[in-house]
């Protein structure tokens, strides 16, 4: 049993936000999915205050060791999520972690407040990879911004707050330290690395409809390992490590680096049961691991 922010989990493997739609997967695979759910906790896709269509296609680019996505956080908005998604996600056999994003601190605060007292929600994750439109700074790229955001939302809920760190900044570890100092219960990393690809037939024209996107998959695994090490050296709160995990061995590496939980993301696109497989492989490794001692 793994303990994370006061939540008991049967194993340390969860999903990365936005890499698994439990509602669509249940429609595709039936209730068998619930009986053998691939993750110990479910992190839902980013919710924003207002509904979002997402970015124009194409949204995907396959590249060496992974992919670039430019999805643009399509979602039904807070009201739609509460009305349509939350009742279905509450039926999952695992704790629910809700990921939220706002374009101002006040927006994030409204989102946190909306979930603050809901029994269906075990914890909140803040997506800070977007700009604060009032300051022009990426909320998670600047320690001062992150600290100020935590100051705004920390008093609003007793639920655990996880700050999802972006790797696209000078020092994720500085941001993690600010998050911890201002009351974050945990941090998760890495989000995708900003990248782009040109159209294969038109020189210099971006392929992705959104221009740039986020790189994920095995290509970012080494970056994730280094950043989790850096962050662990600076904070004592739990860490959810992720980035290119494809096997129990990769998950074990992130645990050795200091993560408490490990998220599987892009690998679930290649196999919806990847989370269960990684958890099973990890359970074979852990009894003989340095971590168990």
């Amino acid at each position, binding site marked *: 049993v793994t303990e994370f922010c006061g939540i008991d989990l049967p194993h340390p493997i969860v999903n990365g936000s936005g890499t698994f739609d439990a509602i*669509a*997967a249940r429609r595709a695979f039936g209730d068998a999915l619930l009986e053998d759910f691939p993750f110990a906790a479910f992190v839902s896709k980013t919710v924003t205050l207002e509904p979002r269509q997402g970015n124009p296609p194409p*949204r995907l680019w396959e590249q060496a060791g992974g992919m670039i996505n430019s999805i643009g956080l*399509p979602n039904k908005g807070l009201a739609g999520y509460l009305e349509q998604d939350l009742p279905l996600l509450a039926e999952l056999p695992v704790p629910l972690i809700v990921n939220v994003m706002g374009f101002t601190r006040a927006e994030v605060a409204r989102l946190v407040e909306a979930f603050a007292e809901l029994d269906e929600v075990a914890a909140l994750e803040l997506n800070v990879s977007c700009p604060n439109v009032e300051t022009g700074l990426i909320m998670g790229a600047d320690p001062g911004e992150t600290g100020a955001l935590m100051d705004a939302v920390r008093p609003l809920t007793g639920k655990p707050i996880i700050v999802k760190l972006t790797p696209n900044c000078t020092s994720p570890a500085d941001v993690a330290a600010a998050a911890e100092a201002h009351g974050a219960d945990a941090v998760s990393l890495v989000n995708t690395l900003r990248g782009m690809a040109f159209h294969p037939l038109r020189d210099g024209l971006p392929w992705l409809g959104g221009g740039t996107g986020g790189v994920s998959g095995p290509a970012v695994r080494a970056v994730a390992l280094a950043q989790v090490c850096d962050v662990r050296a600076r904070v004592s709160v739990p860490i959810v490590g992720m980035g290119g995990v494809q096997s129990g061995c990769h998950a074990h590496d992130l645990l050795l680096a200091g993560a408490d939980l490990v998220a599987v993301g892009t690998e679930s*696109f290649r196999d919806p049961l990847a989370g269960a497989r990684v958890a099973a492989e990890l359970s074979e490794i852990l009894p003989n691991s340095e971590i168990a001692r």
Partner: protein
Amino acid sequence: MLAATERWGGGADERPFLPRAFSVLRHHHDGTLDFLLEDVGPGTRRLAELEPADGLWILGPLGVGFRRPEQGRRPLLVGGGVGIAPLAIWQDALGAAALVLLGFRDAAHAAGAALLRAPRVATDDGSAGHPGLVTDLLRAELGSDPRATVYGCGPPPMLEAVRALCAAEGVPAQLAMESGMACGFGACFGCVVPTRSGYVRLCVDGPVLDAADLERVQ
């Protein structure tokens, strides 16, 4: 979704990485599935290299397929190129009476028409069947009897021509569409196409969409 279980990855530029989405061409009583693929990129190249007894990773069936025509409408199946695959399994389901119109680049590609029963063929270069577009055949059919439901699959320009023709004639059409996919089960939101009601995920809300829901096929 299909992928080779061995050496998926390691090709040109370390691709393929993601599995590839395919329609089933035909399923047999012994459980065998047939697929039709054309070697056009690293994924289809690797799949085309597979030998008997090699491992194939498969996830499916996924998504929403063709629906039967309303009472009083005959099914008209219209396909182009490698996009004829879902029409074969649909013709099997509908029965032999379903008329099939197929378009190909040339006679060599038109050999694929043998995968369906009694198709009428058009080729761009006139080397087999009707010289011209498959939509010429469709226009003539709808002219002789418009009480039909059209089932289309093929390259986007062909599907757009089918959509526009059916819209003009007031004939319902269902189009099997294609988009790059990462997962195939609604997780990644990468395969969206624009419809009159916004973006929809082709993997879970398609790949078959009602033509009336589309402004145009892009």
